[in-house]
């Protein structure tokens, strides 16, 4: 059922890649399934063994054992061509890498338990490569692959977050004497340093080592060709890694005492693990990959492996399986270890679905362009274009170019610097919040981050404004600025609305607020925002004075330590009006005209709102501290919300007018007088359809139709009209000059009765006008 999800109609009709029917492959599929089940069994058993045997010893024994068997089967030294010295060095590197990867894998096994290891680590290369292609390239291969990738990620997240493993709590206390080598100790401390529990650290470790493994497999392909076949490489690799691990094992066994009572009882399980995990799986995979397609092999293998892992995890602690396992263990310890939980089951289901979707061959990865039709009438597509068009520039270069562009112009430079400052403040706040484990700081940091999105929008719009006009954006990108101002206005409206609603609920039920930490945070925010106001005040007709400017320099450096001094773990829980506010400066909106830049106005309003939000917080903190008026805080935010709302309305109104193509307000009079002047030009009978609108901050576009007498030179009229309208501010003009002959031609050309009627009517009106002017 699941693999049907990605198949399309074409493959159902046998037009796509033809798969070999299952019946011929039954043998191989059965073989594969059996191998996978055995492998799951082996992994479970090795988890048990790893509790007593040290991980390096364990891997050494595995490598050595499989090397012996493989040497017997493959005979890498007697057959094939001799191996040169350079190849031996390469082999050595290869072996070191493979040792590291298997160390990581088995270490993850000790952390997460066998089931989770199987789910995370045992993915086929095909699946992982498809996943990475979806995540990091644009041409992932259609929605089905995207779905598969999403399922995979959700499954990993499920394991990370929703998997309430009982062992997690036990491991969290982290007994120092538990691990017995420098390596494990180092890994443990590294994971503990990251601040995640061992189990989650294991998940992360396994995912990372999975990616490593896939990269390693891809990289070792060349070496395998050089050596002479994958099997020979595998045999030699096992041998060399055993040799590499040998000194370590000797040192280890010399320094630490073994926990193993009798090595002889471990021979059988070790043999089984070597056979199932190392040898059998390798050979069967190789056979199946040649007999079936790799994706299909991966699909069946993954399903079999995961299902058997689930079953085994369920029954491993069951008394029935006690005779199956070689190690007898005290029961009470096992029952709590890495048990099945809902999260694991869900993620296993998701992993199965994801691997089956991702490993299914993509049938519609390419997008063809229709070239034409063949003589038979079937459409012809061109698939080359897609590959050729992807000459995208590299990411660093793109960043460098856009940075250069940003810094070129004043507006975008201002926004960029302020954004950097804001982000720096936010991250200081966030890190300090994490450091002192203060939720109030963290949540305020998130608020600041959220506010930064408006700045990012403004920055992007300021950048886009300077792009060249294209076929689609024929007037240029200047209008983006206005649209971004409009969106920022809407953003502020939404913020005001939420603050309003929240403060109304708070007025009804004022919560108790811990004000310990509010002041330093809001003072810091205030100082940062004052810098912003300073930077952006030029966008505003309003003079905000140099007072803020002069105070910001020493103020900012001051805020750094004042902030870190004060915020010691107090929970500034839910302080209302989190930095959103607006002062009562009734700013005159851009009716003054001249360089009305909606984008900068929107950004400015945002910064202003933040600033006065912090002012509001400071004031309400003082009120609460001094007088204990708890209601001051919601009232303050109520006031702030209203102010934001009122201050945004002019911006929204202006942006709306521009977007609705109104005649620009500040040029209205000029335009009217210009139109009167146009009517008075000699030879002009009348004008119709005068459209003038502001396209962007510095472009007013216009179109007008003129009717002139038939004996006047059109170009002269056009020149005069253009000059007149240019004086009125219109700098992108099209003038259509019509004479009576035009209407005659048009009525001749037009097809329908209606059009002829309309044209003749227009002609009549023109005649009438001409008469009128003649009389005058």
């Amino acid at each position: 059922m699941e693999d049907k999800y990605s198949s399309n109609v074409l493959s159902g009709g046998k037009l796509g890649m033809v798969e070999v029917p299952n019946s011929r492959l039954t043998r191989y599929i059965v073989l594969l399934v059996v191998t996978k089940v055995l492998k799951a069994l082996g992994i479970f058993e090795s988890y048990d063994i790893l509790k007593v045997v040290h991980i390096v010893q364990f891997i050494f024994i595995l490598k050595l054992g499989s090397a012996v068997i493989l040497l017997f089967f493959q005979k890498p030294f007697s057959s094939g061509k001799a191996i040169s010295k350079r190849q031996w060095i390469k082999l050595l590197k290869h072996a070191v890498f493979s040792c590291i990867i298997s160390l990581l894998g088995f270490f993850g096994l000790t952390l997460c338990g066998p089931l989770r290891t199987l789910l995370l680590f045992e993915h086929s290369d095909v699946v992982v490569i498809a996943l990475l292609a979806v995540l990091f390239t644009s041409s992932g291969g259609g929605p089905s692959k995207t779905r598969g990738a999403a399922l995979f990620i959700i499954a990993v997240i499920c394991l990370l977050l929703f998997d309430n493993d009982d062992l997690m709590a036990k491991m969290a206390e982290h007994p120092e004497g538990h691990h017995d080598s420098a390596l494990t100790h180092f890994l443990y401390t590294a994971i503990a340093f990251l601040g995640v529990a061992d189990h989650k650290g294991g998940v992360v470790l396994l995912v990372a080592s999975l990616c490593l493994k896939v990269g390693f497999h891809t990289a070792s392909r060349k070496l395998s060709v050089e050596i002479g076949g994958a099997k020979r490489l595998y045999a030699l690799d096992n041998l060399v890694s055993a040799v590499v691990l040998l000194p370590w094992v000797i040192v280890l066994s010399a320094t630490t005492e073994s926990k193993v009572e009798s090595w002889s009882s471990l021979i059988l399980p070790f043999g089984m693990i070597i056979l199932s995990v190392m040898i059998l799986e390798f050979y069967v995979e190789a056979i199946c990959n040649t007999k079936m397609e790799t994706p299909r092999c991966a699909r069946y293998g993954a399903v079999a492996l995961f299902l058997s892992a689930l079953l085994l995890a369920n029954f491993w602690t069951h008394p029935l399986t006690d005779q199956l396992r070689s190690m007898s263990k005290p029961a009470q310890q096992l029952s709590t270890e890495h048990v099945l939980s809902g999260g694991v089951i869900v993620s296993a289901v998701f992993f199965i679905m994801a691997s089956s979707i991702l490993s299914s061959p993509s049938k519609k990865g390419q997008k063809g362009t229709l070239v034409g039709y063949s003589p038979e009438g079937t459409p012809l597509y061109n698939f080359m274009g897609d590959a050729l068009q992807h000459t995208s520039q590299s990411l660093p270069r793109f960043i460098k170019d856009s940075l250069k562009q940003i810094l070129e112009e004043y507006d975008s430079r201002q926004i960029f610097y302020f954004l950097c400052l804001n982000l720096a403040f936010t991250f200081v706040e966030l890190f300090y919040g994490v450091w002192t484990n203060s939720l109030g700081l963290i949540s305020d940091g998130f608020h600041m981050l959220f506010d930064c999105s408006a700045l990012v929008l403004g920055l992007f719009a300021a950048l886009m404004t300077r792009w060249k006009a294209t076929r689609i954006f024929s007037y240029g990108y200047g209008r983006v600025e206005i649209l971004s101002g409009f969106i920022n206005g809407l953003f502020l409206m939404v913020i005001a609305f939420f603050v309003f609603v929240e403060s109304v609920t708070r007025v009804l039920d004022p919560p108790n607020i811990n004000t310990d930490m509010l002041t330093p945070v809001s003072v810091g925010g205030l100082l940062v925002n004052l810098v912003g106001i300073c930077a952006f005040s030029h966008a505003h007709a309003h003079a905000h004075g140099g007072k803020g400017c002069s105070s910001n320099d020493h103020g900012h450096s001051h805020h750094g330590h004042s902030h870190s001094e004060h915020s010691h773990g107090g929970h500034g829980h839910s302080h209302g009006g989190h930095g959103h506010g607006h002062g009562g400066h009734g700013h005159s909106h851009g009716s003054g005209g001249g360089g009305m830049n909606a984008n900068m106005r929107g950004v400015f309003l945002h910064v202003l709102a933040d600033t006065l939000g912090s002012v509001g917080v400071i004031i309400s903190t003082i009120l609460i501290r001094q007088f204990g008026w708890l209601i001051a805080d919601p009232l303050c935010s109520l006031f702030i919300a209203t102010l934001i709302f009122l201050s945004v309305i002019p911006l929204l109104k202006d942006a709306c007018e521009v977007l609705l193509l109104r005649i620009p307000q500040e040029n209205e009079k000029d335009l009217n007088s210009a139109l009167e002047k146009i009517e008075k030009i000699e030879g002009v009978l009348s004008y119709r359809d005068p459209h003038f609108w502001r396209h962007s901050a510095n472009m007013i576009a216009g179109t007008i139709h003129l009717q002139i007498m038939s004996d006047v030179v059109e170009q002269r009229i056009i020149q005069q009209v253009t000059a007149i309208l240019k004086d009125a501010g219109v700098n992108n003009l099209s003038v259509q000059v019509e004479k009576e002959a035009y209407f005659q031609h048009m009525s001749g050309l037009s097809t329908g009765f209606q059009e002829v009627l309309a044209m003749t009517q227009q002609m009549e009106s023109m005649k009438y006008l001409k008469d009128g002017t003649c009389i005058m």
Partner: protein
Amino acid sequence: QGTIHPFRKTHKSVFGKLKQEFRLVTSDRRSWRILLFGALNLLCTGCLLMWCSSTNSMALTAYTYLTIFDLFSLITCLISSWVTMKKPSQLYSFGFDRLEVLAVFASTVLVQLGALFILKERCVCLPLTHTQTHSGRLLVGTFVALFFNLLTLLSVRNKPFTYVSEAASSSWLQEHVADLSRSLCGVIPGLSSVLLPRMNPFVLINMAGALSLCITYMLIEINNYNAVDTASAVAIALMTFGTMYPMSVYSGKVLLQTTPSHVIGQLDKLLREVSTLEGVLEVRNEHFWTVGFGSLAGSAHVRIRRDANEQLVLAHVTNRLLPLVSTLTVQIFKDDWTRPLLSGTLSSSPSPVPPLGPEGYAIPPSSSALPPLLSDPLTSTPSKPSSPPPEFAFDTPGRNVQQVVLPAAGHHAHGPYGGLGLAYGASPYAGMLSQGVARPGMPSSQSYRTAFGAPTLPLRFGTSNPLASQSQYRQYQP
């Protein structure tokens, strides 16, 4: 008092105007229904918000925002019915069609911002301990909201949103559902008529949101899994984003006055046709954009040969573009338009080119031609009955052209083209012209003209008396 007065007056008039417009809208019977649904929606939204705060469920809040979006869409619907009643005013010369687009854009952006808020809340609350979600009214709220949303969607004919949802590119939700249902149809072919057509994105997101809320409810009831609430809130917010984003991109592009990409092919074809018209040199500064949903407006500058007939070319260009572009302005542009009269007088002379003329007519004509040129455009008195000769004297002496063109124009004006159709209209016309011209024209003069005429003409006027022509040019300007 004097300063207060106008302010109060405008303030009053804003409300008065609103009231008047509202009355205008409500005069239509159909808008009553919208208002009724709006009232129901408000009621429902209020209930849902109450339940949201009582269940403390973020997912239900995210779903409630969809109900609020329905309210916005109803308002958009009212606006669109108001727009149809309004005529273009003097200030808003393109009419109010754009208000519809703006309303669609604003409502989609607002919903996306709401979803952003949900995401932010989740981000902020993630480090906090999970809030307890009470599942009490969750299911009831879900079904009430779903019912009302679907009722509103299906019973109110929402013209602007229907248009946008059809015209915008499909969202990722739609794409995934289409992909899934296509493979499902591979299993059960009978479902193809139900599943294969493009899904309505609003219905889709309502269903998907309700589904995820149901799952949330089940998991909370069964396992007391409160983290699911967060997950499903994020999922609903992401789905809202996915659904609304293409629509806001589409309407935003309309607002940005861009050429809609689906008409570019058609436009290119028309512009190619235009540039092959007789006399047209190039088409430039072409701007085409949509006024409201659907109706195109545009302007273009057409550069024509100096001797082509401006009105004729204008008529042809307009005729080509008008079926596609309803509000069209074409500016005809000529290089060095001060000279056509000169060349006209020159070409009407029997031997126009200096090397040809044995009489030595080359230098004098400039002086002899100047007086009419000066007098004619400046006074713009109808000294000459009409000006076809200069326009059509491209290859031959003026007399010939007069013979040919005038009947053609007359022929044209009486409209035998009425039945010929659009595409056929121009080409025979141009062909006939050139034929008519070519037949009487002497082959020798033609070849001379093409060989020498073009380069020598500008040279002569550029070198002999540039100052004179400059000064004349200045004089024309008022």
